């Protein structure tokens, strides 16, 4: 590791943002430290701190420099890191585990990804074949199994409204990693399931995108008009929250179509349960914790 991978970097994103990179590399302990720091920062409600954006291995704060000098903010953040840093894994997070149907190797993303082979690392294959090969899987099917075998933690929200960055809750040696496209696509279907770096995402709306395309989710994660009850009841246009646990469950075309019909009828609801997530318990026993969480979800 080089110094940039282990030391926290505090930097200024122009006059209105402070960017804090806890590590250049992603890991769950680093993410939990980011979570611990941003939660404490929110509690402290420092005047001039306008917005707090926790992310994977870093976080960002929008500051009003007319009320709080960005350098003074950095000093506050360093103090909080000193206070929280060593024991962030001891926090527990009140969260939800959500069942998210997903069709992998679906026809819709396949059609789009074939249009953009010239922007891809492997112009002659598909994104799934490429992902399987560079992650050492013998078959694409085995790779697909691994993608859906264990739940994911939402470690960042954004890009566009409601998009969850999901980090699979497995030890590092079992984590999938793929590059983003060499040049971003100008087209991505709505609800595409993509993968970039060590993160899975669902694209809330159609648009540009640089992630490998692996599948498609039948249920929306963004509902601008709050038509569906999951959105209307929570008075939110986005479904996921930072810290949610997502269990991507493989579905076939028949179940995919069935979910789509429920969405069209306005009756679709996600199945989810509330639970306490303990990072330290998870890190001590990943598979046991995952099995227990799935038990809570599916009974």
């Amino acid at each position, binding site marked *: 590791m080089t110094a940039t991978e282990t030391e926290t970097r505090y930097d200024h*994103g*122009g*006059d209105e943002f402070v960017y804090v990179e806890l590590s250049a*590399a992603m890991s769950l302990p680093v993410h939990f430290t980011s979570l611990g720091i941003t939660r404490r920062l929110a509690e402290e409600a420092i005047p001039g701190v306008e917005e707090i954006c926790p*992310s994977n*291995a870093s976080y960002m704060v929008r500051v009003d420099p007319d009320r709080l000098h960005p350098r003074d903010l950095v000093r506050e953040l360093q103090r909080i890191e000193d206070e929280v840093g060593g024991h962030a894994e001891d926090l527990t997070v009140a969260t939800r585990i959500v069942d998210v149907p997903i069709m992998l190797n679906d026809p819709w993303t396949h059609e789009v990804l074939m249009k953009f082979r010239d922007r891809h690392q492997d112009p002659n294959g598909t994104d799934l074949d490429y992902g399987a090969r560079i992650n050492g899987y013998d078959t694409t099917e085995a790779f697909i199994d691994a993608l859906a075998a264990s739940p994911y933690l939402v470690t960042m929200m954004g890009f566009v409204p409601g998009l969850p960055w999901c980090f699979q809750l497995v030890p590092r040696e079992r984590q999938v990693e793929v590059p983003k496209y060499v040049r971003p696509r100008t087209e991505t279907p709505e609800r595409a399931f993509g993968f970039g770096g*060590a993160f899975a995402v669902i694209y809330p709306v159609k648009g540009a995108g*640089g992630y490998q395309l692996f599948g498609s989710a039948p249920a929306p994660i963004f509902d*601008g008009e709050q038509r569906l009850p999951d959105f209307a009841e929570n008075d939110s246009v986005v479904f996921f929250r930072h810290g949610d646990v997502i269990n991507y469950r493989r579905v076939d075309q028949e179940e995919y179509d069935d979910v789509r019909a429920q969405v069209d009828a306005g009756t679709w609801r996600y199945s989810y349960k509330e639970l306490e997530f303990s990072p330290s318990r998870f890190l001590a026993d990943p598979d046991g914790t995952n099995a227990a969480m799935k038990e809570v979800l599916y009974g």
Partner: protein
Amino acid sequence: MTIRVQDPGLETTVQDTGRLGYYSIGFPPSGALDSFAYHVGNALVGNEPGAAALEAVYLGPTLEFTQDTVIAVTGADIPAFVDGEEIPTWESVAVSSGSVLSFGQLRSGARPYVAVAGGIDVPLYYGSRSTYTLVGIGGFEGRALRAGDELAIGSDARDPKAGRRLDAGDVPVHPSTAEVHLLVGLHSYRLTDDSLARFTDTEWKVTPDANRVGYRFRGAELEFVPREQPFGAGSDPANVTDCGYPVGSVQVPGGVEPIVLLQDAVTGGGYATLGTVVSVDRDRLAQTKTGDKTRFVRVDLDGALEVRRDRLGALDRIRSALT
């Protein structure tokens, strides 16, 4: 009591100061790209500071007013007409019911603004009237205006009055080479020293891919420092572990086409960023168009704060003088 859109121009949207407070779930701020022109327009017509106005690009809209009101055209240098008679810009003008506002050919800049006494009355969406067309929310039905749309005029007028004028010395000029201040940092260590120097030495040309989401430029090739990529980033040298992007940050996917993210941009992602344009200088970018040149002038944090103070101080002085 409305504005009837006879011709929408190229892409005219309702904008205000923006949708702030939801960045962490992926809402970019949206809002007027040229904040100075927007704020001065509201001050000229006597509106409360956050009233919604119209932002056009390249081609102005043709608008019919169905009530007497007061308007002001600011921003890009473009001739504006009421019922065929040229009207002064950067000045409030009374229009009567049935009058039609139209525009001639853009002389310089890119985005004209139309402020109307009372503001444009569209529903608040997550606290703002700004249009965010990428996902179709806010503004007028979440989209750019079309012929036949009827916009309601609001009640945000404090003191509507014709004949308020911005001093000629305060009217921004839009040179064909814009200078914007850049605070280098974030993932600038990913670029070679040569490339970073080249970035600020180059006169960048605005490509056709320049809109409210971001501006893409051409002009030089930049190189990344080779490294073993950290876990989570992905193997491309332009990749970093996905993180938040400051509004105004500059990324260089592939090393050939720097992108400056603007008010409708994505809030995060996994491409290395080399720095951030000082917030008030996004006004200048907003008034550049395809083919124009842009130069990035390096400042440190103190320099960035000074540019900000100067520009916002001037706006405060202008607003007090107009009210």
